[in-house]
């Protein structure tokens, strides 16, 4: 357990000293959402209608943006080999790195989301659900994306390839996430959506690190 925390701590320290990844992801998220009024027009009703979907799609893209580098630098400088050879199981390494990635890129999205919801004129009834879905959904995005990041290590055009592989797998998260907000906006209970999201998270927590570790083992072979 202390080793696991050591891994998380190292990744957090690396991210904080490099400093760019976290801020770029959240800036991208904000810009992406801000573009929509220019595309569909400033009509408040239309914006309020699409707010939940827009914020969720932007969150997907923002999380993808930083995923490419999840294992990339460790792979290039040889750290990944050493991590694979350390006494810590590789599954735990994947989980630790994913957790660090989420803390650095996922949490800021959750904080920024309500501000964007205000900009898009979303009804306040949906704010709580928005934050809640992102809190359950963004770790899920990091977990699923981590598999893709591990699979595309060493590939040509890894970043583009990563989006091609991962975006279809993100669809259920998007459906339940945006669906929950829509439900609260229409005065319905978002509970079933949230439970399904939580179920997906519960399934992904053990499975995604396992698949990611399998992919990493091939990458360092």
């Amino acid at each position: 357990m202390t080793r696991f925390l050591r891994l998380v701590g190292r990744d957090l320290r690396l991210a904080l000293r490099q400093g760019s990844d976290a801020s770029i992801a959240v800036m991208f998220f904000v810009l992406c959402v801000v573009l929509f009024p220019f595309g569909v027009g400033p009509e408040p009703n239309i914006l309020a209608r699409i707010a939940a979907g827009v914020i969720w799609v932007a969150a997907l893209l923002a999380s993808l943006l930083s995923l490419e580098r999840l294992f990339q630098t460790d792979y290039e400088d040889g750290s990944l080999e050493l991590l694979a050879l350390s006494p810590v199981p590789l599954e735990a390494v994947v989980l630790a790195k994913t957790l660090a990635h989420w803390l650095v890129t996922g949490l800021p999205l959750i904080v920024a989301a309500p501000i964007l919801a205000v900009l898009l004129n979303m009804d306040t009834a949906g704010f709580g659900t928005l934050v809640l879905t992102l809190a359950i959904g963004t770790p899920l995005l990091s977990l699923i994306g981590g598999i893709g990041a591990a699979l595309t290590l060493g590939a040509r055009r890894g970043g583009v390839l990563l989006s091609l592989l991962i975006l279809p797998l993100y669809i259920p998260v998007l459906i339940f996430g945006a669906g929950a907000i829509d439900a609260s906006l229409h005065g319905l209970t978002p509970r079933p959506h949230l439970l399904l999201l939580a179920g997906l998270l519960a399934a992904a927590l053990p499975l995604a690190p396992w698949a990611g570790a399998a992919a990493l083992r091939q990458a360092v072979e």
Partner: protein
Amino acid sequence: MPVFTGSELTCLRGDRLVFTGLDFRVAPGEALLLLGPNGSGKSSLLRMMAGLLKPFRGRLAWDGAPVPDDPDGHRAKIHYVGHLDAVKPVLTAAENLAFWAGLGGAADPRASALAALDRLGVPQIAGVPGRYLSAGQKRRLNLARVLAAPAPLWLLDEPSVALDRAAVALLEGIIAEHRAAGGMVAVSTHADIAMPGARELHLDDFTPVTGGNAFDDDAFGDGGIEGEDAA
């Protein structure tokens, strides 16, 4: 302390058969020197010993207990130093080293990191971020890992690259000490690293004569000629 052995090892890289039928044995206090031209599989053998590369055929064992039965135990017994130095540019040398020491199970990672840097003759780089280190200093930092956390078997792939004469002498002393304490080493090298009494393994002895590949019958070891072909 147990004996590390490999028997009937076959290494396949892509479709190329690198070596086949290779046996080795390292007992406590012993050193194995891997020799051979480029492409003869020195690095591959070390990666195989480390467990990064699965042997296509053959087995690795500690005192006869196969490595795949206890991969966690195996990883706890080895240190691997490869071509890449695994130095993070934004962390200081001491932070870099302390992380690996902690992961390897050192009780006080920071103290053992500083001691290891001292032993490799570079105590002054402890507070220097990785991006300002020279190639030789990064190499020493990487080698310091094997001292920062204890493990009986050291696998060193071309450790003398980028090192000056003084550093190589230091390394020789460190290896001798490790062996005297019952440790084992396997080293691949082109340059001379003095290791008295080291067993030499010439990898070109195990290079297959013909360019065999996975898509020939014999690579599956069961012969392939059936009645219809013979007829």
